[in-house]
């Protein structure tokens, strides 16, 4: 245990979180105090971005050892730092793409930015949680913010509906999570992941099926957040109903956070009993990939299609989780990062093209895009190819990483199923490009107003997608480093 230092109370370790919280507050105050003079509230976006950048600066770099604090409920290690990076990046990108959208949809409330920042705090808590309690708190902070964000467009029924569904089901799933936590607590006498792990290693054989059951219930709770079948049903509806920027947000950050917690719980606390939960995750992975990809084929609404695609990607990530080796974990980290770029990239373009009240959301609306807006179309194609896992994009390397892990652990059948699924996925991603390039426009394109923010987001996503696809080695080293201090 040389790489662990324990401090009961270390304010520095939560500094990024404090920064974000502070900026969230500032945003709220600025919004309330100067609401008359703010105009289009650009300042709020700037403030949030500033908060994110400062938080990123604070949490940058790596740490040679895992720093535990707050009575060992909170840990700063390379793993959580990497996830912080993912969260901050995705939140930053989402803020870039949402500004214009919020104004257009007339929901440019100040609390939007605050909620996004708070939600990010929740995610960071989840990634850094070394204790089930902390993870639970993080999860709730994140989720409650998103419940609100989903319903932000108060006047719109779909937004209300999405919010309600997400809220009810989210709370429902959390109930299972909590029940699982209580069972684990009952069986092992602790919430602390390390202690649970120690207990299981030393006296694991006396717990009976309870640990198994507890893990299973926790898997339900987190599986809900990552959109794993059969806990996925909220995803399409909520994605469709939520304001698009929020959809972009929740398709990336919360998912990554949930996976962060997933990995940490399963690998740290229950690493010694992995052969038990692997079976569950194995089945979930297959179901998730297959249902996500197969149902995506029939979708006509791009947001819904992306929702199913998001489910499918969760499936691929679960494959790596099944592998339960370092390769798999680092693969998931890598994949999540690539997923940030490609998914937010796609949503950015969807937002650019969409009309007020979420018009222009049918895939067929994109007909002829390739000629009307070639650059947008090229970027969109790139993101979609990346999602489909075609080189030289990031998604390809990500898939390679994940399926390598599966094969390394001998899950060849799983890898084969995953690959078949990725072929199915190629179909619906390609269909979008087919529409863009190979069909005549069915209707006029409205003149687009493109803010520099969103352009920046697209450019960053493009660069990220290509860079991770062509020169992934730096990031790979980083992710491999990230998991070294984990256990």
């Amino acid at each position, binding site marked *: 245990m040389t790489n662990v230092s324990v401090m009961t109370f270390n304010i520095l370790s939560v500094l990024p979180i404090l920064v974000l919280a502070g900026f969230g507050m500032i945003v709220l105050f600025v919004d309330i105090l100067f609401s008359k003079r703010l105009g289009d509230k650009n300042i709020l976006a700037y403030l949030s971005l500033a908060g994110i950048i400062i938080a990123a600066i604070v949490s940058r770099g790596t740490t040679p050892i895992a720093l535990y604090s707050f009575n060992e409920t909170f840990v700063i290690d390379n793993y959580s730092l990497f996830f912080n990076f993912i969260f901050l990046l995705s939140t930053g990108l989402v803020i870039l793409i949402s500004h214009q959208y919020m104004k257009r949809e007339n929901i440019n409330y100040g609390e939007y930015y605050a909620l996004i920042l708070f939600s990010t705090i929740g995610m960071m808590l989840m990634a850094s949680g070394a204790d089930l309690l902390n993870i639970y708190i993080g999860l709730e902070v994140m989720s409650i913010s998103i419940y609100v964000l989903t319903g932000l467009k108060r006047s719109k029924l779909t937004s209300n509906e999405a919010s309600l569904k997400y809220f009810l089901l989210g709370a429902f799933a959390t109930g299972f999570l909590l029940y699982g936590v209580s069972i684990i607590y009952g069986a092992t006498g602790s919430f602390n992941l390390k202690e649970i792990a120690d207990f299981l290693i030393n006296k694991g054989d006396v717990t009976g099926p309870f640990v198994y059951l507890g893990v299973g219930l926790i898997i339900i709770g987190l599986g809900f957040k990552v959109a794993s079948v059969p806990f996925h049903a909220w995803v399409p509806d909520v994605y469709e109903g939520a304001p698009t920027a929020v959809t972009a947000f929740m398709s990336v950050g919360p998912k990554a956070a949930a996976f962060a917690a997933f990995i940490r719980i399963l690998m740290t606390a229950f690493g010694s009993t992995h052969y038990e939960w692997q079976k569950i995750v194995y089945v979930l992975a297959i179901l998730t990939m297959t249902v996500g990809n197969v149902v995506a084929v029939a979708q006509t609404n791009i947001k819904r299609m992306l929702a199913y695609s998001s489910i499918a990607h969760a499936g691929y990530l679960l494959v790596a989780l099944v592998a339960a080796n370092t390769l798999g974990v680092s693969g998931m980290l890598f994949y999540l990062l690539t997923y940030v770029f490609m998914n937010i990239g796609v949503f950015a373009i969807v937002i650019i093209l969409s009309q007020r009240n979420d018009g222009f959301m049918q895939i067929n609306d994109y007909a002829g895009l390739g000629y009307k807006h070639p650059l947008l179309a090229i970027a969109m194609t790139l993101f979609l190819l990346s999602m489909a896992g*075609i*080189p030289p994009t990031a998604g390809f390397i990500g898939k390679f990483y994940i399926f*390598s892990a599966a094969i390394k652990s001998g899950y*060849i059948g799983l890898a084969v199923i995953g*690959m078949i699924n990725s072929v199915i996925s*190629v179909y619906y991603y*390609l269909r979008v*490009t087919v529409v863009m390039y190979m069909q005549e426009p069915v209707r006029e394109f409205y003149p687009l107003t493109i803010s520099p923010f969103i352009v920046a987001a697209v450019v960053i996503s493009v660069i990220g997608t290509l860079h991770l696809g062509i020169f992934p*080695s730096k990031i790979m080293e980083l992710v491999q480093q990230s998991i070294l201090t984990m256990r």
Partner: protein
Amino acid sequence: MSLPLLSLITFLPIIGVFLILLMDSKDRELIRLTSLLVSTIVFFISLPLYFNFDSHTYDMQFVEKLRWIPSFGINYYIGIDGISLFLILLATFLTPISVLASWHVTKNVKEYMIAMLTLETAMVGVFVSLDAFLFFVFWELMLIPMYLLIGIWGGPRRVYATIKFFLYTTAGSVFMFLAIIGLYFLNYRATDEYTFSLLEFYRLDLSFAVQFWLFIAFFLAFAIKVPMFPFHTWLPDAHVEAPTAGSVILAGVLLKMGTYGFIRFCLPLFPEVSYAFIPVISWMAIVGIIYGALVALVQDDLKKLVAYSSVSHLGFVMLGIFAFNIQGIEGSITQMVNHGLSTGALFLIVGMLYERRHTRMIADFGGLTKRIPVFAIFFMIVTLSSIGLPGLNGFVGEFLILVGTFKSRILYASIATSGIVLAAVYMLWMFQRVMFNEITHEENKMLKDISKRELVILIPIVFLIFWIGIYPNSLLRKMDTSVNHLLMQIGEKANIVSVAQGQKNPNQLKHNSIPKIDIVSESKQEW
């Protein structure tokens, strides 16, 4: 370190892509000229590969090796031997020709040329890669521009065709991808070294069962690409819908990636299973030969006819590869080049007819020779080359393949030879209906004979058709050492494996019946 010739050849087209990106899409002529220039330069700088190629060594030549993704042991590792040399040349040769053949494309010229040049990079990349991962990257990369070429500039059913093409090929290649990863870990287990280097993979000793599954995975990818019967149905659709240049590249180079894959991966990596699969693959090839020829016979669309003839021709190539002797494999490589030339030329010619008449239906033609005699000569030569007339290129490859096959399996060769008869039937019948007889359609009386641009396109091909036919040794000598080495590799490994491993494989029966004949040495065979 001298000039990184291979990298230059591989990535110069991409530089061309960037140049074109900078251009105004309305400046079509400039874009065309640039892409023509770039691809021509690439061709000329690929010529030193041939002339400086040392045919006395089987080692990889013009090797470049850079670290790419070190944490996985993935390298940018490229190099060529006598097997890949000609396929690279074929790719660099056909690209400028295809660019030239696309002169009349007016829709989105910029994107078109970008796709063409990207395609060239991917094609060359596939053939130069010595790192399995790199190979796969190029292999998949190739799909995108081809997908766009068919989908955007294709015929009426282009969307169906292009998606079919993409999905079909991807479906095959994902399994190959898994197999490559599998090899990677197997190699690690054996050598404690993480690498995707093909040359390292060659040293692996795999058990029969492992070989079997890996072989199946690679087989699917390659068989679909070739395409072997019964995985061929994407081909006619893709060909019919693709623009002329797309068909040329598709038939000329892309299909060769499959056969090349068999030589590069399946044979040396899984020699035992490849052995065991001789009957299966040979029969598939034979069925492909005859089936392709028969179906070609009754087509009424010229492009479809040529497409099915490809199925037949590539059946020969496969048969030759799985003859497991030097004549067969050298014949196959030669035939890959030949098929690229003659089928490429056929597609060009069909394209030229299409430009004139806007139809590809055989029934819409007839008697053209009278109007366009010079064109007819070229058409005739190419047709004869495709038939495999001695003295032209097609014969050399086919005959060597058949000799090779005959040496190992007389029956196969005997049946396959009938494909040559059928080739004459469908090609000549087609030629007769298009070029001979009386002109029945008024529109055909106005046709213009071959243009200067078309001459520039066809003359180099026809020159090579004759050259390879008359002096095939200029190819065979360069590949001799490499092919011999390949066979040596197979022979050695097969022996090692069969000694080291007890026979507990899934298909023991086949395995046991592996003949011990003429793999390396051309041992005498009494009949």
